[in-house]
């Protein structure tokens, strides 16, 4: 029996039974934008950047199972406008000052803004003022850049077996917290080689004393755009 397929922007994409739209597209070398989705973890569905249109409804491609014959719209003006708006909201919620941020060029939020041609944050900035946590000898936390993808929360819990991070508060008051009575990273069993230390897509969890060791212009997304970097290497790729 031949593999079932769906249409992504008019092109046929094969999928396995139970596979989500984003995963199937990715396996076929087709990029759907995402920030909170990660191949090592189950779908989270929080950032909504992977929004696609299926049968007139806007759904998260990371959490919507592929269906044979479905027509999925992704790279369209309507959907990309929605994604840009979501990005703009993420930018104003935090302090994303790329010119002085050491994650610039390696930051997925910044790279996606370039990819989706976001030219201005548009909305009023929140300017959060959350103190940097520099208590840990090896790792620094700048909470003002968090986009609430929970990748660190999930990595620490599911892969490191530590539960160092958590989101606290609700709605507009939601924030990333360190799971210690003092609230300080130094008072947890967090280690610089934890999975959680290396998974932040933005500039929250930073290895100390690295800063600008790699010049701007020679960084991940300086060399190739996000929509290329984010795809798995296919056979024959160099």
């Amino acid at each position, binding site marked *: 029996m031949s593999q079932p397929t769906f249409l992504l922007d008019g092109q046929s994409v094969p999928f396995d039974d139970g596979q989500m739209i984003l995963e199937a597209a990715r396996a076929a070398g087709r990029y759907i934008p995402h920030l909170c989705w990660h191949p090592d973890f189950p779908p989270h569905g929080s950032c909504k950047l992977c929004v696609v249109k299926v049968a007139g409804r806007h759904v998260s491609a990371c959490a919507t199972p592929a269906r044979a014959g479905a027509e999925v719209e992704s790279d369209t003006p309507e959907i990309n406008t929605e994604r840009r708006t979501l990005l703009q909201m993420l930018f104003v919620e935090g302090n994303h000052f790329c010119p*002085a941020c*050491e994650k610039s060029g390696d930051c997925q939020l910044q790279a996606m803004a370039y990819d989706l041609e976001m030219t201005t944050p548009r909305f009023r900035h929140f300017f959060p003022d959350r*103190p940097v946590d*520099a208590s840990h000898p090896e790792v*620094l936390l700048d909470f003002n850049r968090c986009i609430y993808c929970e990748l660190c929360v999930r990595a620490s819990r599911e892969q490191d077996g530590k539960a160092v991070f958590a989101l606290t508060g609700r709605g507009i008051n939601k924030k990333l917290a360190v799971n210690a009575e003092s609230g300080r990273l130094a008072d947890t069993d967090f280690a610089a080689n934890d999975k959680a230390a290396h998974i932040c897509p933005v500039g929250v969890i930073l290895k100390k*004393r*690295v*800063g*600008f060791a790699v010049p701007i212009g020679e960084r991940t997304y300086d060399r190739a755009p996000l929509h290329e970097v984010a795809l798995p290497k296919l056979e024959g790729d160099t």
Partner: protein
Amino acid sequence: MSSDLETAANRDTLRRVAIDPISRVEGHGKVTLLLDEAGQVHEARLHIVEFRGFEAFIEGRPYWEIPVIVQRLCGICPVSHHLAAAKALDYVVGAVPVTATADKMRRLMHYGQILQSHALHFFHLASPDLLFGFDAPVAQRNIAGVIAAHPDIARQGVGLRRFGQQVIAATAGKRIHGTAAVPGGINRHLSATDRDALLAEADTMVAWSQAAVALVRRLHEADPALYDRFGCVPSSLMSLVRADGAMELYDGQLRLRSADGEVLRDAVPSHDYMDFITEAVKPWSYMKFPYVTDLGPEAGWYKVGPLARVQNCDFIPTPLAEAERRAFRAYSGGAIQHASLAYHWARMIEMLHAAEVIRDMLPDPDLTGGERMAEGPRAASGVGVIEAPRGTLIHHYWVGDDDLVRWCNLIVSTTHNNEAMNRAVREVARRELDGQTLTEGLLNHIEVAIRAYDPCLSCATHALGKMPLEVRLVDAGGQCVAQKVRNG
């Protein structure tokens, strides 16, 4: 300090003249002249009316971010802030000294910055006043007017600035706001391609710089009555010099020379600046008034920048610039020159020096290879002092064990010249104001005096923007009796 600048016995009877804002300088400033009933200028104040507060908001940030954050103070000389911060933080990471490669890459970047900033100031900002006269129509007195009337001068000015920017791009990674200097060293080498491209033009840049010095010298010689007296404000001079007394713009020790040429203080280690200098505060300006502590506020204020440096050093360690320095000193018979317009001459001598340094440095193999980073025992604080295009620039940081900046102090070049600029404004206003009428000529003359110092009011406090000129004449009762507005 200098009480006659700012106090009057009967303030209620003074008339107030405001020039707001000042054009063709970097940032926003405003001048107020308070006149007595006889129409004499009794007080003169250059207000820096904006506030930026970098010192406050970098507290609590990790130290490795600082060279990249602080350069956002300015779009004209970000390299100076970038390097001063990196130099200060070298002490924190124990990189004393940095590697030969790091030192040379930073030096090359710095001299590129001196070249481009001096070219920008002289050709784009100041030359319209000097070539057309202070009272020439505003429509002509700008860089477009220079291009129309003196296309060769304009072309060379644009070319010199472009070359300086290319040196910066090749060393810092970008023409503006590069990220190459990091605490402990540098994050890149000079590429052979960039080196060769720059070398191909280096001799031309030296020749054009020589022509620029000759141009200013001719202007001085043609009208000594103006150039030697306009905005003349005798004062001490302060700058870094090398241990052997040579001009040194990247590193060195502080020297203070009196108004008549005597060396008052020498070989002051830059990290002792807090004992050496005190910053006074005035209620009417965000810009502070530094003075040499043990000389006191009345006698201890000084000038910095090209005019100070060219006369403070014993010699310039490149031959063409040294010959021009000697000519500069000979012009005044060896006496120290204090006239505001002499800044332009000194600035062009420094531009020539920078062009020579760049040309001579480029073939050095340490630029294209070698160790980039050094480290050593951590220290809690560091001071970085550099001669920025506009004068001595001081960065000082304390860093906690957790790597966050606990405290910082920045004293920028324009701040050192604050007292001198105020005095220059008063000197010019007293000579030019007839006491009854606000003329374009008066306003032009005051602006020319301020502009000679190449003040970076953004660095001192704030930001860049379009600067139309608005002048208001207000009587003692607060009534506006005259107003002039022109677009910048």
